[in-house]
């Protein structure tokens, strides 16, 4: 009862059934057969897509750079396995619309031969800048799902001295247990990655936050972190969305990140457990981010498991490996069931952000039979960002998008709590995603109409200039003609005189 007053109150959130038990008890499966072809999208991260530097037909090794990052916020892409580049073209993207984006198609030769790169003997002698350079070169992005390039975060961390680095082990989405297994099996590697990141950001205090429904992971991480005083491991209440970075920052440090500014500006940075593990592999062994642990679960999965999969593997192959019964799969979801995207079919590649692939049956899904909103305000109670989903949805339904923005549409993190709790099964998050998309479309239309107005004014000005020009030429011509006639008349009169 006492901690009611000590621990900062967590606002909103829901308690979905975890349904992690069928995947959280077995080890991570590492003997996934190397697929024949890998489809590697160039845009697997937040920021500009990577620019390919290889040509069709090149032979590449595992971990070799395929596309370099361009611009300030971007991340390179590496070969998940050794083989020959088949094609660089547009293929369906792992997105609800499955519209094509540019991908590199790699035909594997089965050797899985690593691309050797220099390995530092003692990484802690490296300068912090060198560490974030290596992390950036390894193509590491946030593996929690946000996929923000980690190197950029480390640089920002150095600029405004971070006093707390939070390692997000909450994994609050139901079904997913890849972070849980990673912490249980590779705790030392993760702790080593955390120390490297601390060194990379010149900060001295890290907190690993783990939800209290994962006691084994908590124990393993505590043992691994015991020798290092700068790393503290703490348990946080199990409540979706505990993994939302701003919620975690407020719970762990008590600070609230103001709207419109990054968390590093108030001295806190957050990284996922998987990211720390990838940093460890990149710095210690020079291995780029080429594979990741993916949870395959759901009612229609014969053998639910956590499997280490090379990036770019088609979901259909992962499903085949896990004996997924496609007939009673009502919906394929990439990521967790709360925030994940539904995919139209399984022929899409896994990417750096794929923390889980779910094959859900009809009974597990929320019924889509919509009833009228009875204003029960359960969505207002569960919204962690403190918005009023029912009022926003009502405004969006009658196309009052500005009113919805005033109610806080821009602060919606689409965590799915309101859609989860709504007794009338109203797709609230889809209302908000539609509205944000519509607002962006309107801004673009507004921008376009301003530009076209500028083009029109320029053209009209040019037309007037040309018209004035023609008038002057006309006048000049008439004047010249008159002049010539006058001269001829004079000549004629002089001749008549002479």
């Amino acid at each position, binding site marked *: 009862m006492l901690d009611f007053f000590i621990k900062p109150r967590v606002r909103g959130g829901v308690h979905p059934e975890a349904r992690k038990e069928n995947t959280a008890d077995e080890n991570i499966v590492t003997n996934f057969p190397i697929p024949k072809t890998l489809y590697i999208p160039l845009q697997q991260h937040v920021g500009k897509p990577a620019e390919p530097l290889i040509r069709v037909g090149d032979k590449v090794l595992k971990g070799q750079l395929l596309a370099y990052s361009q611009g300030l916020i971007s991340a390179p892409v590496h070969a998940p396995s050794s083989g020959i580049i088949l094609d660089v073209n547009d293929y369906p993207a792992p997105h609800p619309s499955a519209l094509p984006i540019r991908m590199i198609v790699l035909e594997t030769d089965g050797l899985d031969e690593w691309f050797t790169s220099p390995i530092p003997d003692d990484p802690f002698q490296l300068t912090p800048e060198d560490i974030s350079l290596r992390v950036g070169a390894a193509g590491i992005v946030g593996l929690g799902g946000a996929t923000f390039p980690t190197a950029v975060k480390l640089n920002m961390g150095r600029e405004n001295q971070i006093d707390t680095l939070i390692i997000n082990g909450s994994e609050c989405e139901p079904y997913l247990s890849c972070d849980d297994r990673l912490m249980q099996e590779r705790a030392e590697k993760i702790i080593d990655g955390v120390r490297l990141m601390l060194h990379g950001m010149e900060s001295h205090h890290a907190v690993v936050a783990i939800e209290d429904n994962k006691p084994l992971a908590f124990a393993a991480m505590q043992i691994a972190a015991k020798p290092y005083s700068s790393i503290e491991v703490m348990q946080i209440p199990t409540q979706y969305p505990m993994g939302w970075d701003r919620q975690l920052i407020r719970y762990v440090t008590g600070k609230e990140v*103001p709207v419109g500014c990054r968390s590093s500006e*108030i001295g806190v940075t957050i990284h996922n457990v998987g990211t720390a593990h990838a940093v460890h592999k990149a710095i210690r062994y020079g291995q780029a981010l080429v594979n990741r642990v993916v949870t395959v679960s759901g009612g229609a999965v014969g053998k639910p498991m956590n499997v280490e999969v090379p990036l770019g593997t088609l979901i259909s192959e992962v499903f085949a490996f896990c004996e997924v019964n496609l007939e009673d799969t009502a919906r394929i979801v990439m990521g967790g069931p709360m925030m994940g995207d*539904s995919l139209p079919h399984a022929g899409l590649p896994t990417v750096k952000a794929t923390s889980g692939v779910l094959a859900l049956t009809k009974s597990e899904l929320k*019924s889509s039979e919509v009833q009228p909103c009875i*204003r029960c305000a359960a969505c207002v109670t569960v919204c962690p960002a403190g918005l009023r989903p029912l009022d926003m949805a009502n405004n969006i339904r009658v196309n009052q998008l500005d009113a919805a923005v005033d109610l806080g549409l821009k602060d919606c993190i689409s965590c799915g709590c309101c859609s*989860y709790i709504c007794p009338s099964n109203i797709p609230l998050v889809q209302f908000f995603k539609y509205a944000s998309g519509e607002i962006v479309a309107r801004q673009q239309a507004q921008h376009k109409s301003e530009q076209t107005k500028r083009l029109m004014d320029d053209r009209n000005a040019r037309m007037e200039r040309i018209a004035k020009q023609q008038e002057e030429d006309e006048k000049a011509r008439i004047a010249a003609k008159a002049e010539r006639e006058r001269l001829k008349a004079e000549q004629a009169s002089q001749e008549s005189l002479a």
Partner: protein
Amino acid sequence: MMVNMKPRSGAHIGTKANVTFIMWQVMLALMPATAFGLWLFGWPAINLFIITLLSAVFFEVICIQLQGRAVKPAIMDGSAILTAWLLALTLPPWAPWWIGVVGSAIAIILGKQVYGGLGQNLFNPAMIARVALLISFPIEMTTWANVSPLFFSHSPGLVESWHITFSGLDNIDAKTGATVLGMIKTEFSQHHILSDILKDYSGFGNFTGWARGSLGETSVLLLGLGGVWLMRQGIIQWHIPASLLGTVILLASIFHLIDDQHFMSPLMHLSSGGLVLVAFFIATDYVTSPNTPLGQLVFGAGCGLLIFVIRTWGAYPEGSGFAVLLMNSATPLIDYYIKPRIYGRDRQGKPLEIPKS
């Protein structure tokens, strides 16, 4: 390969509760008090109850067909039945049949369907109907039948109850009397003081419900139990009932201390009239109550204040109907001004300043 599935966003999983489940839960909570009320006032009450429910469903079906909407789902969500149920509980037990029909008509058509069906109404439909009936048919709405439980010697049999319901009461004075509130209101107007008015008042009787009153609101005990159960089920929050009852008790005790001859004691306020029924079942109606807990507290306090003011100084003995309607009209304002603070923004919505660490 399966056919391409339509993109769907947001939470793919969800709670199993839906609107119908909530409505039936509320009806379940009302069951004990209703059964007791029907037993207490015998067959005429049962007739009235059934007539009100049937006419409500009938009007709902007509309105939905007029709007060209699918009839089946709208009826199945039980909101029409619940509205009629609540209305019936607030009617005089031996009221004639047309009171029930007209009440349901006003509640369903004017109260809900005109606004566009479930979730769209601005005022509590049951309360609109009760207030409209009270103002337009004062006599029928204030003939309170004596307690005459089912199968007791002097209470009307089945045939006689049809006579009462369909062709009205014959010897009115023998069978009816005033409720506690009504009696006090008339005595006060003749400047009697409280102690001699309440010579034969039994507190325990009123609390358990053995007293004259509307069909379902007499038994405070059963209504309270039903309400607490609803709260434990998580269907309603504690904010509205607590602030409503708390305000009435607070005001009543203050005024009772000042002058206990002219102001009823808090316990008497609690166990008379429709206070508890309104607090647990009518004021907590989702559609017409504010969204935020603080807003609900303000709403409950407002209802409590108005109930007390109308009961003490108003012309009508029972003010809860008016109080709920007045506070329903203030709900949009409460929601406009009392809203949760958005993460990373201050109360006015401006982003917080970056703390100078």
